[in-house]
Every structure is written in C-alpha cells, then in structure tokens.
C-alpha cells in the first residue's frame, strides 16, 4: 500500500514540472513584447534635443537610456541640452539603415509611443532582411 502511495506521489512530481514549463514558457513569450526592449539594430543616427529642466523632457532622456551599452559604436548619437529657461519642444530624430529619417515629437508621444514608432519601421527592415536571406 505504502509503495503504491509513493509511486503516485512520484507521478505527481513528474506532472508538476510540465505545468511549470508551460506557465513559464508563456511568461517568457510575454516578456519579449516590444515594450520591454527596442530594436536598435537598424538605427544609424540618433539626435535628441531637450531641456532637462522641463518635465516633458523625460521621454527624450529615457529614450537615450534605452539605447544599448554599445550604441555609440554602432550609431551616431548626438544630444543637445537646451538652457533651463528655454521653452523649445524636445524631439528625437532618427535615421535608419535604409536611409529613412524619422522626427518624433517626444513630448506628445511618450516613451511607449516613441518605441512603438521606432519598432514599426525596424520590424519592416528585419522582415526584409530575413527575406533577402542575410
């Protein structure tokens, strides 16, 4: 009888990892959503202008923080800081590998919006790259 019990419990142990795998597998898929990381592979030039003392400059600053640690080797990053009294709008200017230029109004879009716009074009480029077989 006791042997039977142990066998059952062993079976139970076997079942649980399968469930865990399924759950965590789903989680890891959700973590790969574009909001978590930005596709920076196709960017060649980034230019940001902002006044750090304006609350709306947050987007542009966080965008800079989203670039990977080796970003300065793969793309040209220029940042212009406006003086404290300046009322100019902050923006992010991008250039992609295929030559497309994008000027994003960072104040209106927010960081999620900016990333969405960047990824929209980056995904097109990555698909083209896959189709050409590089």
């Amino acid at each position: 009888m006791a042997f039977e019990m142990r066998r059952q419990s062993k079976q139970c142990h076997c079942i649980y990892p399968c469930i865990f795998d399924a759950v965590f597998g789903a989680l890891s898929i959700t973590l790969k959503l574009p909001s978590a990381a930005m596709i920076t592979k196709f960017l060649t030039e980034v230019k940001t202008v902002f006044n750090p003392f304006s609350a709306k400059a947050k987007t542009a600053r966080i965008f800079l923080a989203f670039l990977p640690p080796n970003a300065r080797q793969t793309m040209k990053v220029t940042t212009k800081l406006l003086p404290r009294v300046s009322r100019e709008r902050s923006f992010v200017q991008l250039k992609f590998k295929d030559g497309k230029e994008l000027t994003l109004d960072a104040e209106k879009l927010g960081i999620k919006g900016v990333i969405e716009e960047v990824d929209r074009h980056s995904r097109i480029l990555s698909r083209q790259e896959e189709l050409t077989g590089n």
Partner: protein
Amino acid sequence: MMPRISPPSRAIASILRCKKASKSRRHYATAVTPSTSHDPISRVSPPIARFPPTQPPSYKPPEFRKSQLLRQYASLIRSTPLMVLFQHNNLKSPEWTGIRRELNKALRKVDDSRVAAGLPTENLGEGVKIQIIQTGIFESALKIVDFYKPESQPATLDPTDPSTPSSATIPIVKPDGSNLTHSLSEAAHAAINRKSHTLAPLMSGPIALLTFPTVSPEHLKAALCILAPVPGQFPAPTRRANPGWHDLPVQTGLQKLLLLGARVEGKVFDTEGTKWVGGINGGMEGLRGQLVAMLQGLGGHLTNTLESAAKNLYFTVEGRRTMLEDEGKESVDTKAGEAPKVE
C-alpha cells in the same frame, strides 16, 4: 456588601488631587471609584524614554530599504553644498571603474597643487564621490531637506551627564512619536505633501550624483575636465599627461555620461550655470580676492562721494564768504565815499 475601606473624606480627597501630578492614580482594593477627574493611566506621558535614542519611533517603516535610503539621501543632501547631476546611459562596470579612477586621480592632483601652493591641507578629493541614486526616493529626500524645517528641535539632554542640572526637565516624547522631527517622522511626511521641488523634473531616468563636501570651484573644474570636457574652458587631459583617461573603457563610458545640472548651496543651476561655477578662477580664494578688490574700490568711491558733499559745502561757503567780504569792502568804500556828502 459595604467596602472595607470607606471612600476618602472630602479633605483627604483634595490632598490626593494635589498630589496627582507626581503620583499616578491610587488603586483601591474594592470596586469603589473615586469621583475625582484623574486621567486614565494610558494618557499619562511616560517618565522614561521607551526607545533607544538612536531608534526613535518613525512614521515610515524603518526596516525597509527605501526608508533607510531616504535617511541616507537626506543626510547626504544636508552635508553636501555642491552636487552635480549626471544621466548615465547603460554604463558598464569597467567603464564606471575607469571613470572613478580618473576622477580620483584628477582630484588628488588638485589637492597636491593646493598643498604645493602653501594652502592648508584639506584632502577634499577623498570626500568627492560619484554614485547612482534612486530618483523617487531622492526626490522626497530633497523635499524633506528643503521644505521641512522643524521649529523646535527636541533638546537632547543626557540625564547621566553630571553637568545637566537636576532640575532640568527631560523632554518627553509622546509614545506614538507624534512630536518627533526626524526625516522619517509623520511631521516630515506631512510637510512635503503636494509640493514640488525645482529639481523634480530631473528626477527620472538613470541619474548619478557627483557630491562635494564643500563648494570648491577648483575641484569642480578638475571633475568637469574629466567627466564633461569642453575644449577651451574645461580642457580634457592630454594623452601624454594622463594616458589612463584615453583608455577605451573610460572614453566609451564618458560618451554615455550626460551633465544635466547642479545644486549649489541649495540653488539649482543648469549646464551653463554649472560650468560658470566651475569656471570661477582661483577657486574660493580667487572669488574672495575679487570681492575684496571690489569692496575696496567701492570704499574709495564712497569716501570720495561723501567727501564731495562736504567739499562742495566748503567751497560754496568759502565763495560766499569771499563774496560777502568783497561786498563789505565795497560798501565800506562807498560809505566812506558817501559820508561827506550827507554831512
């Protein structure tokens, strides 16, 4: 059943009421309750502190890391008159190590040059630190330091100290800690509610602080030369003078470090203002020299101005006197000439 002890008479009750301040309520063996208005025991303030002096009761839970970070930041802000804010964009640890090494080297050089110039040794360079902060907690620490100014600090009297007079009353802290004034207290929390600090917009994203123990433009200049070099005003060290600064990790790290602003003596400066503070020639001594020269010049002007009024008066009076004298002479002459005519 009648109580064994009769309730106190009116006279005794009045004596008991007088003694109330020093003694707690008197207990009776029976269920008889005196009709006097004694406070219940729970509301009497405790005669001894019920907590160690280093651990006063706090509003925010002290066992959390963020409460301790808040205390640490508040103390940092109170002890740092000059701090520079940087944004760090994904710096790696070798890059941080390299930058800190170069910074220390440059600051030590400033200290050595001050000693060589005959100024007293201060070793400020060792107190200068660059550290990453938690922005949200740092913002509320800034607000606590700038907006929360408790009027009455609870006096720290040590009853074991022989110099304390025996008649001195030890400040009683309420058991719920509602009259405490430390950074984690309820009063501090209420004081910063719904207020926004000038530095608040900077408190988002990855922020690092460079803190100086005193306002020293020389050290700030040395630090800016390393961290945010500008050709001309803050020249980067040459490859021959300081080859370590030109290492690849330091250079890649510095590209990702962005000078945002500074807080000097409680005032907020932007990038240009920070560079102006760093560009004060000759440090604080130079600034004092400039001030003294200006005041001396001003003093000279002032004495001239003050003297000029007296001089003017003197010249006017003197002119008038000579004029009167001349007139007097003339009148005497005319009188002398006219007198025979009348006669």
